[in-house]
């Protein structure tokens, strides 16, 4: 209990810092710390799958994305004095937010007893899926349609980002070209870390069928490693009009959808798996989905095309 109180206070302290810091870069560092502490909280709440996701996406890749944006914006950081809301508005906002928090706190204190749960039915059907991790079973079997749509949402976000490219560089290379520094620390780190990172990513993905882990967490690490080689200047981001890249991006959702539709023929329902082949089909979906998500996440971080295609 003392431990949890301490962690909760620390989370709140870092959150206050993120909101109150004068410097944007300092606020972003606070946000990275916030994600890291939330990962600890998820472990305490017996949700290791969520802890893995929070560590990988919430803190890691989102943090990297924000850091890049804050430093790019800072070069000509115009002071925002005069556009700050006045004291009255700030006070009104504070009162409103306090009320929202109080309302949510009241809901937390008035949760119904006994707590509603879907854990028993999830456990009862786990064996049919051939999986050992109930969260993966929810993502890939019971609520597979959510996951299918999620992969599509990621693609839509990427299409949105690509469409921000100015006319002249439509379909070009995303982001700035990073120069390789053959003697430098960055090259050394990239060469050492990337193979290890890829191994960790594959492990986290593979272990997901029996233990906490899975395709999103594994894919995020793979994406981070790709971005790392780009930042170290070892590879350039591919032009977004490349055919192989686009095939890679849609492979996951396409296989997912095809197997989902095949469910009509085999079992008579969308995304239904025949009992004997459930695990095989789930893994068949998961491998291309992981690769597609990894590519999508990396390109989401890389941003819109900034250099014309050759």
């Amino acid at each position: 209990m003392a431990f949890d109180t301490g962690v909760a206070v620390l989370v709140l302290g870092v959150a206050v810092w993120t909101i109150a810091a004068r410097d944007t870069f300092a606020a972003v560092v606070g946000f990275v710390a916030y994600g890291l502490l939330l990962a600890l909280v998820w472990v305490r709440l017996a949700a290791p799958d969520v802890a893995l996701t929070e560590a990988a996406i919430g803190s890691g890749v989102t943090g990297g994305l924000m850091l890049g944006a804050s430093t790019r914006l800072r070069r000509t950081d115009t002071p925002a004095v005069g556009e700050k809301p006045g004291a009255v508005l700030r006070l009104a906002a504070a009162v409103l937010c306090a009320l929202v928090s109080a309302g949510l706190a009241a809901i937390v204190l008035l949760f119904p007893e006994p707590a509603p749960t879907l854990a028993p039915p999830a456990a009862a059907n786990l064996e049919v899926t051939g999986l050992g991790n109930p969260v993966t079973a929810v993502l890939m079997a019971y609520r597979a349609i959510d996951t299918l749509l999620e992969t599509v949402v990621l693609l839509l976000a990427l299409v949105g980002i690509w469409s921000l490219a100015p006319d002249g560089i439509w379909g070009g290379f995303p982001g700035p070209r990073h120069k390789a520094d053959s003697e430098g620390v960055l090259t050394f780190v990239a060469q050492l870390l990337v193979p290890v990172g890829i191994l960790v990513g594959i492990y986290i993905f593979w272990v997901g069928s029996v233990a906490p882990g899975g395709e999103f967490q594994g894919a995020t690490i793979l994406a981070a490693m790709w971005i790392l080689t780009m930042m170290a200047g070892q590879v350039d981001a591919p032009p977004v009009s490349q055919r192989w890249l686009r095939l890679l991006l849609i492979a996951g959702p396409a296989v997912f959808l095809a197997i989902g539709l095949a469910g009509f023929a085999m079992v008579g329902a969308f995304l239904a798996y025949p009992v004997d082949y459930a695990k095989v089909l789930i893994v068949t979906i998961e491998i291309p989905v992981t690769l597609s998500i990894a590519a999508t996440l990396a390109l989401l971080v890389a941003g819109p095309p900034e250099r014309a295609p050759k």
Partner: protein
Amino acid sequence: MADFLLAAAGFVLATVAMGLFRILRGPGDDDRIMAAQLLSTGGIAALLLLAAAMSVPAAVDVALILAVLAAFITVAFVKGAPRSEADRA
């Protein structure tokens, strides 16, 4: 044993937090990067201790992800930082 490991996790987090707020204030970005570095090492240590204390082996995987991404974030810091222009060229 579990109680001791939990207490050790709390102790490490508390010490790291003390330093965190001092150096988050800066003045330089270097200090802030060091703050994040210290917290990530402390967080990883706390996760490893929690994994043993609570018998949640998956917490070691969380620490593993944080360790991989800590190096990744460091590179993002440096690539983005304006002063690294000179280094990059």
